[in-house]
């Protein structure tokens, strides 16, 4: 059967109409659900950020999907006068990816602390942003301190951002806005639901190989000492900056979904993690986490800092972790409980001030 050019044109027109309708539906859906602009070129997490000579920072009053920032740029409700303010600094684990609105651990921690110490009037301000490296956090401390005058800062900084050191350099301008199909993300998510896990693992492995080829570098077995040293020095810098602004740093060790002795069942999740950090082999991730947490413990011991060892207290598994390091709502509740339990005695005397 041969198709006439007229019929072929009709088929192509119908395909174009269908794709455009689906795209328009996705845009209207975003507009109804999140107030997203229908005709903007793109709609992605970059809406949450703005850039200056120091690099990336949160954009006050920004909104992207369920994520809403307040007028000082922290995730959550507006800052109110009075009470004790606690900063939460970190990356996507702290910012909250998978939890429903209000269930990310800083918000749960605030509720926990206020329930345990009702006179404290604690406000926990979530100043974390996805992919935020420690040096960029440090540069933002002066403006955050001036805006909200916090008493404490919880530092939950993942060492995984130190796999590829050029990632630590702050971007001084926003990535160029270009047209993005909103449909593409929906199709990707649908694919994740429909494609069997094994096939997804294969696709991830292919992505990793492609990323390595693009970087033109051989992967590491273990995170190099140089990178760990940089992690330590960046944390020291952050701590001293916080102290300079009379903010007491509280270090929190980094938890993952993996049990102390991972099994073969954990391998796909390590592959999924490596997709974001292709330079480090899967076998290197858990030793990297242990080294990072050892650094936190050493810093706390040497500098006499308060440390919450969440890594050793957080239970493993998918009830608490939606992926390798990001919490589920239940995981965030657990994390908030751990933090509140440890912090409450430490914060209690502060109520008398």
């Amino acid at each position, binding site marked *: 059967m041969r198709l006439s050019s007229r019929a072929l044109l*009709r088929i192509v027109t119908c395909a174009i*109409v*269908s794709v455009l*309708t689906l795209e328009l*539906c*996705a845009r209207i*859906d975003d507009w109804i659900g999140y107030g997203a602009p229908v005709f903007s070129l793109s709609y992605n997490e970059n809406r949450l950020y703005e850039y200056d000579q120091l690099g990336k920072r949160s954009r006050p009053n920004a909104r992207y999907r369920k994520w809403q920032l307040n007028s000082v740029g922290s995730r959550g409700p507006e800052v109110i006068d009075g009470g004790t303010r606690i900063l939460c600094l970190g990356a996507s684990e702290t910012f909250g990816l998978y939890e429903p609105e209000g269930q990310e651990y800083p918000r749960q921690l605030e509720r926990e602390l206020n329930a345990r110490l009702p006179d404290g009037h604690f406000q926990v301000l979530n100043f974390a942003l996805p992919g935020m490296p420690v040096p960029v956090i440090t540069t933002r401390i002066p403006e955050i301190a001036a805006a909200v005058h916090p008493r404490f800062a919880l530092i939950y900084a993942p060492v995984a951002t130190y796999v590829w050191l050029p990632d630590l350099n702050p971007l001084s301008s926003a990535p160029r806005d270009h047209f993005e199909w909103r449909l593409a993300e929906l199709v990707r998510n*649908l694919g994740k639901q*429909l494609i069997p896990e094994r096939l997804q693992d294969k696709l991830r492995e292919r992505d990793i190989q492609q990323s390595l080829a693009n970087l033109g570098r051989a992967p590491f077995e273990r995170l190099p000492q140089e990178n760990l040293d940089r992690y330590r020095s960046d944390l020291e810098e952050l701590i001293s900056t916080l102290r300079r602004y009379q903010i007491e740093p509280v270090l929190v060790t980094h938890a993952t979904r993996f049990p102390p002795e991972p099994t073969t069942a954990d391998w796909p999740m390590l592959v999924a993690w490596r997709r974001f950090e292709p330079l480090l082999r899967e076998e290197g991730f858990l030793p990297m986490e242990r080294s990072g947490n050892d650094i936190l413990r050493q810093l706390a011991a040497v500098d006499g800092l308060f440390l919450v060892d969440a890594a050793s207290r957080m239970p493993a598994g998918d009830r608490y972790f939606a992926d390798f390091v990001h919490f589920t709502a239940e995981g965030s509740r657990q994390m908030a409980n751990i933090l509140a339990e440890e912090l409450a005695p430490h914060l209690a005397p502060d109520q008398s001030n």
Partner: protein
Amino acid sequence: MLFNSLEFALFFPIVTGVYYLLRHRGQNLWLLAASLFFYASWDWRFLPILATTMVVDFYVAGYLEKLAKMEAPERKRKLVLAISMGANLAMLGFFKYFNFFIDSFHSSLLALHISAPINTLNILLPIGISFYTFQSMSYTIDVYRGELPAARHFLDFALFVSFYPHLVAGPIMRAVDLLPQILSPRHTTRQQVLDGIHLMIWGLWKKMFIADNLAPLVNGIFSETAPSGFHTLMGVYAFAFQIYCDFSGYTDVARGVAKLMGFELVLNFNLPYFSTSPQEFWTRWHISLSSWLRNYLYFPLGGSRDGEAKTYRNLMITMLLGGLWHGAAWNFVLWGAYQGTLLVIHRALQPRLDKMFDFRAAPARAASLTFRILVMFQLTCFGWLLFRASSFTQIVTMTASLLHPFQQVDKDLALQVVGYAGPLLVIQCWQYFSEKLMFLANLRPLELRIAAYSVLMYLMLFRAAKPQAFIYFQF
């Protein structure tokens, strides 16, 4: 293998693709194999039960025809028919109702303070048994009545019983409608392809977007111990649309799949919530079952031939058994009794109602029509409360909550129900007033139709809830 599953998304194109490559006999054999595979995908242990139905009815019908040709006495023919009916009903009774009757008997004994050690059995309910048993029985009865010649080849008859699109949830096809389509070569027309694709998209949209999204909302309300009147109302309205979209969605897909292979299955739903009376409702809701009950139960009981009292009795018996057909539980019997009562009352009041609503002026006629549709919808919804409830206590509690003034109105809940059911209602108003059920399939130009289908596809692919099993599979 649900129609809204990845497995079916693989099964369907393979089966249909190979089907198009074959000639008539090969198509039938291929479809029979595919249908048995489809049925075995639920549980292979169901296959012998299905096979027993096929074998019994094929040979009994053949024998009945032989007896008719030999001009055997009517008594003997009736006895042979009774054997087939007995075998079918015994299987249905055992697999579906055995535990129900044992439980009920036990409860009755306990109520009389008689204790007896009676145990129920751990019986697996073969999926779709009510549908294929009724279908197979209709074949034997039609052959007995001389309305249909017996099938010559077992494989043709086996395909009639097991034809996968309608095997597990109907529509219940009479042999006079389906068997001739199996016996003669089929040619899928362009219109059938267009209508088939339309029905599949439309049915899946109703199931995946409306029914599956309403399901958690309904489940939540029906699991509340003491729901408020407003919650009950919303729960019942939501269930009305859930069950309609679930069941009619299934049959739309079934009809669409069949059309793509050149088969025509009967219309099973015709805008039932636009009925103005109980009688009309049963000509619009689950049409294949109501036709079956009318042809094989109500008419043999005497129908409306022997005076009003007997007509009422026949209506009640038909609806009670129709209720019991839905499931082995007393709330289905109660639902059947409620539907029977509505039919009886309507029949008794019909002359007066016709007079009362006989308006000449167009606005008055329109208002009267709207009023009757709304009243009938409320009556139908109360029936759904009986149908969905899990206990008599729940029926009483929820009914009582409806009788009190509503204290609080949950706007979010109302918005959700309207959000899911509203678009369907708008489209159905259009279908009702234009009298075109397939209006989407007839949209012109083609690009507009493609755009409309794309919107439906968007909603069912990206706004669908977690897939739920079709409600009517349990029957």
